């Protein structure tokens, strides 16, 4: 029974494909299967986007001691519908001196790549839309295209704010892409595969029946996860790293000249990117669709995946409600002076963990490696020395 719940979507897909599966040629079945996958992906994540956009406002509202949207529909849940209609019927303004083609293509490209990245994440048992041997690499290959799209948006708008915002965005994305990818390396090293399914599979066992073997429970994994999460914040331009669109400084960054549905596309792409990076984080560090304790395995695997995803998304929103925006130079310094060395340390710590037998000894050793580097970096990067205590002068 539990198994049938777990595999209910797989069964549904097979049932949908059954009319053509005996007659049609192979490639047609593949195309049909892919189309079904894409449809399911779009359906689920666009719904999730709608849901999150309203939930974010509500949660932020609660954090700021006010109600969020609560007028449209029950509890304001139809707010995204209203927003969507508004965006669709708004005038689409294209600046006169813009590079029309590039200006048009930028949101298309950014949304397309964001959705493509979703395709390799395993959402449940046997529920990976596209099984690619180098799935993680595919994720990052597609993700790196975002930078080009952002640049296109900035350039195509032919606006100084757009260009500056795009430059900022690309600078911080390139800077944080390195720690992002390098923090994934230890997981890939330990599992020995770039295949997301294998990575999830490697986290499937439990110690003592209730401690799951998620990578986040190792010192290197925990550190890498935190670094990964911070880099993910930057990659999806979320607070506190939202300088590319910091409205008090450069209007809306590379999106300044976009309006109507194109703007909505950017907005959507940002959220989809957030989903993708969180989904990857769940896959890599939080055990994917596995249950946290063994006896809860009867709950369907995709449910676990989305629970973990929701927790990460909540943390995104929580951070947005909590932290102020960081300065540009601070972001870059942090990336190159702290994130990158720490990411490399994670790789070394994972190697240490592996070569000391993956047990308690390895656990302590890798913790030691990370602690030593962390303390060293903290001492080296200590900025307190540079500033004298503030002195006040009063009128005498």
């Amino acid at each position, binding site marked *: 029974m539990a198994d049938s719940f777990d595999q209910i979507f797989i069964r549904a897909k097979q049932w949908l494909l059954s009319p053509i599966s005996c007659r049609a*040629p192979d490639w047609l079945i593949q195309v049909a299967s892919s189309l079904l996958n894409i449809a399911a992906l779009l359906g689920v994540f666009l719904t999730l986007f709608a849901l999150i956009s309203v939930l974010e406002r509500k949660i932020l509202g609660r954090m700021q001691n006010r109600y969020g949207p609560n007028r449209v529909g029950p509890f304001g849940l139809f707010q995204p519908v209203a927003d969507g209609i508004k965006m669709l019927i708004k005038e689409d303004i294209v600046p006169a001196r813009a590079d029309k083609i590039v200006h048009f293509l930028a949101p298309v490209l950014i949304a397309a790549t964001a959705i493509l990245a979703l395709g390799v994440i395993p959402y449940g048992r046997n529920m990976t839309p596209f099984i690619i*041997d*180098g799935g993680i690499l595919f994720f990052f*290959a597609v993700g790196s*295209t975002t930078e*080009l799209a952002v640049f296109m948006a900035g350039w195509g708008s032919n606006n100084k704010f757009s260009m500056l915002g795009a*430059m900022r965005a690309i600078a911080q994305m390139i800077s944080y892409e390195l720690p992002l990818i390098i923090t994934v390396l230890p997981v890939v090293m330990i599992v020995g595969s770039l295949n997301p399914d294998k990575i999830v599979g490697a986290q499937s066992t439990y110690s003592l029946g209730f401690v799951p073997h998620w990578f986040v429970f190792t010192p290197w994994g925990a550190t890498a996860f935190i670094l990964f999460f911070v880099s993910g914040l930057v990659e999806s331009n979320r607070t506190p790293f939202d300088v590319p669109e910091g409205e008090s400084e450069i209007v809306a960054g590379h999106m300044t000249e976009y309006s109507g549905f194109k703007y909505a596309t950017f907005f959507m792409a940002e959220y989809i990117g957030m989903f993708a990076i969180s989904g990857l984080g769940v896959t890599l560090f939080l055990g994917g669709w596995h249950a946290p304790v063994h006896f809860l395995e009867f709950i369907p695997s995709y449910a676990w995946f989305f629970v973990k995803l929701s927790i990460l998304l909540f943390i995104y929103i929580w951070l947005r409600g909590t932290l102020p925006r960081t300065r540009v130079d601070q972001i870059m310094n942090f990336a190159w002076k702290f994130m990158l060395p720490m990411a490399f340390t994670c790789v070394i710590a994972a190697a240490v963990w592996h070569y000391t037998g993956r047990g308690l000894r390895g656990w302590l050793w890798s913790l030691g490696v990370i602690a030593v580097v962390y303390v060293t970096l903290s001492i080296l990067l200590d900025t307190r020395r540079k500033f004298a205590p503030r002195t006040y002068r009063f009128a005498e």
Partner: protein
Amino acid sequence: MSTVAFAGIAILTLAAALAAATLQKLMHAALSFAVMFVGISAFFFFLGAEFVGLVQIFVYIGAVAVLIVFTILLTRHDVGKVRGFNWSGVFVAVAVFGGLVWTISKTKSLSIVPQQIKPVTVQRIGELLMTNYVWPLQCVGVLLTAALIGALILVMEEKS
């Protein structure tokens, strides 16, 4: 089916390449260049070298294309000027193409159909990189470091 796919990819790639070579606006050319690389990695997927295809996208679109657009941006004041077109290059290119096609057509053994092979897994590539190709790998590492430093020094502002 595969021939159709091949033709489609070939047309996309060559069209994008031609666009990248001839478009008047530099930015459009650079973007076509990126599209061309998508086409080439499609070729790689098509030929069973998925990993190379992914690396191609990763390196060329994620890094080289971004570098090119950055360079375009940094040399912006020179972009708008209209440039002449060196027609002698076209003759050379066409001549080379003719020569190559003639050579290819003259070689008989090339009209073969590939055998079924197992796809090259990432693991196999990784093992090869760490065993047979470990010295080239180290050399490439050194080369990339040198290139990084060299590029940095080249673009550093000269202090007056």
